[in-house]
């Protein structure tokens, strides 16, 4: 008996009792519908969750200068200054896996307002992009400084909540002037509360200012005095030389023309402490690291075989949390979906068993006219699969419609998932075979004489 004929026979047998077929299918329709709706809503929620966790810094990469060493003594990460703001620009321009990058300069200094003073955890010199990367764009008060402030080295700053508490006693600091190392900064905005990060570092105890201002006015560092041997940072306190950097004189003699030709020095206008970059998504972090590495090696003219003069670090802890959470969410949804399909499958089995009993005489007759037990088995199995596939198709429509409705009414994030649809089709056919097998087997084992005599 050909499979086509079997399918047609099965279809006819089903249409002979459309009400029963419909009720049977209902279990699978609801099951598959639930799976599709849940997969789609779940995928949407999962994506939203991933975004939330990513905003905690899962996709953030920190690029720091490499180590300097002298006579076998290594000075540790960040002991050379190899990164420039141009590196940061090149990274955000040339790496497809990187959303954007920001140059950062750090300082630690006393901050004074009126009769109060305080030493913040960190004073960061940044560009406004930093706020995007840290998902901190929405301020509690005021406006962030802009790119022009960065270009001009304007003395505008944003302060964190801890600073507001300690320096301003909770009063609004907008428009007030604070002094950092005797440089007056105008507070243009107040950051929202962020709390401690995972290492217990108070992220609100921070002042953000254009990196140019921090670099040239607060740290007072220029290329000429930025290297270790001529660091003047700790030397003079509160002197005019910090206000108006003189650009001192190099300790070393000028290079000869031959030296210039052999070892061209890259033209660097400034060094920065680190670059913070955001990958497009947490999954793209490895690619982003590779691309950043390639760009920086090229820019720093590092030959193959030589070691990097920079380090790229990611927030693997956060990334791990993210992947664990996503996996948990997926598994949870899967479990619920499987249970609903199981219930649908048991429904199919029930009705198929009833159907076998009800059609005992038909089975006997078919056997009497020459159906072998495997023909009967196949017929009932195909009937179950046809029921399940029909139910699956209706379920996909229902589930997709349902998730679209949820999106429209509740404004929940929803993601259409072709994988879910494929899975649903395969699973519904599988359910048909698994739960249709027992009734079909039972039918095929009937004794034709008994079956013909069955009332």
């Amino acid at each position, binding site marked *: *008996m050909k499979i086509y004929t079997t399918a047609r026979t099965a279809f006819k047998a089903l249409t002979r009792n459309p009400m029963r077929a419909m009720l049977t299918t209902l279990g699978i329709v609801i099951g598959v519908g639930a799976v599709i709706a849940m997969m789609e809503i779940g995928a949407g929620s999962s994506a939203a969750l991933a975004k939330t966790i990513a905003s905690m810094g899962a996709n953030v990469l920190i690029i720091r200068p490499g180590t300097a060493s002298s006579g076998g003594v290594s000075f540790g990460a960040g002991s050379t200054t190899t990164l420039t703001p141009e590196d940061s620009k090149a990274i955000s321009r040339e790496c497809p896996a990187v959303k954007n990058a920001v140059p950062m300069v750090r300082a630690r200094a006393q901050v004074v307002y009126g009769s109060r003073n305080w030493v913040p955890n960190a004073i960061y010199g940044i560009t406004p992009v930093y706020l995007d990367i840290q998902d901190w764009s929405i301020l509690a008060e005021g406006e962030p400084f802009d790119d022009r402030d960065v270009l001009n080295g304007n003395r505008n700053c944003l302060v964190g909540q801890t600073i507001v508490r300690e320096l301003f006693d909770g009063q609004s600091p907008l428009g007030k002037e604070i002094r950092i190392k005797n440089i007056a900064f105008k507070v243009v905005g107040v950051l929202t509360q962020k709390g401690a990060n995972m290492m217990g570092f108070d992220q609100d105890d921070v002042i953000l200012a254009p990196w140019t201002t921090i670099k040239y006015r607060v740290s007072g560092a220029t290329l000429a005095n930025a290297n270790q041997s001529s660091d003047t940072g700790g030397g003079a306190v509160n002197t005019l030389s910090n206000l108006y950097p003189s650009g001192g004189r190099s300790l070393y003699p000028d290079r000869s023309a031959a030296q210039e030709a052999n070892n061209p020095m890259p033209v660097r206008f400034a060094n920065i402490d680190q670059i913070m970059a955001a990958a497009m998504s947490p999954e793209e972090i490895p690619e982003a690291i590779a691309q950043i590495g390639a760009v920086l090696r090229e820019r720093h003219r590092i030959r193959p075989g030589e070691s990097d003069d920079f380090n790229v670090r990611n927030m693997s802890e956060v990334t791990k949390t993210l992947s664990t959470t996503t996996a948990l969410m997926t598994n949870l949804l899967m479990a619920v979906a499987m249970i609903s399909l199981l219930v649908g499958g048991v429904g199919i089995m029930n009705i198929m068993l009833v159907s076998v009993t009800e059609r005992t005489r038909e089975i006997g007759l078919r056997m*009497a006219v020459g159906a072998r037990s495997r023909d009967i088995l196949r017929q009932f199995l195909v009937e179950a699969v046809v029921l399940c596939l029909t139910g699956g198709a209706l379920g996909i429509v229902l589930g997709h419609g349902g998730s679209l409705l949820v999106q429209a009414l509740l404004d929940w994030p929803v993601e259409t998932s072709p994988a879910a649809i494929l899975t649903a089709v395969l699973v519904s056919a599988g359910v048909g075979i698994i739960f249709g097998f027992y009734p079909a087997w039972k039918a095929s084992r009937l004794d034709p004489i008994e079956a013909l005599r069955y009332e």
Partner: protein
Amino acid sequence: MELIRLENITKTYQMGDIAVPVLKGISLSIAKGELVALTGSSGSGKSTLMNILGCLDRPSSGEYWLEGEEISRLSADGRALLRNRKLGFVFQNFNLLARTSALENVAMPLAYAALPLSERQTRERAAEMLARVGLADRLDHHPSQLSGGQQQRVAIARALINQPPVLFADEPTGNLDSKTSEEVLRMFENLNREDGITIIMVTHDPKVAGHAQRNVSLCDGLLAAEAACAVSGWQGSAGGRP
């Protein structure tokens, strides 16, 4: 020419610990083209014999030769194939598929044939069979739209669709009134005479048995001729089984 030969067929059912012999050694020969009535009181074993003849059941011992083949030891699948090719069945209660057209009912056994026909051939063949039983204008009627006699004629068409040499009829007129019974029996006689189909009918009714050329009567699991019971033991009411 001999079509069917039974050699000392026995059938014993096991009811728990007790063995119940139903057929106690039946030897019988039926020639091609015969119209045989199988009679006997209830419990005489005629249904069991019918099942064995119809290859629905296997004898406990003995030999069953059908068209020169010994088939008493065939597997279930082998018997299914045999039933499909060589045997036709007509039942007392017609056993038509409900909510299925007469044409599809008739075509049903073709689906299990070893060499399946195309869709069109199947329909043509089924329509031809229905025309032969005089139902050419009822192809698309469902069993519930047909009278008892018409339903039985559909069943006969179905039994004959694979052109079997033997047709078994189990109380074929049991559910019919006397007029349609007469029609059905006349159809059997025609098939027997014109197409040479061997027909074996199980019946209670002496009037029905009267249409047969030969009566085989059973009594207590043996042929009545060999058994020590009165031949008049099978007096039945005119309507067949109550």
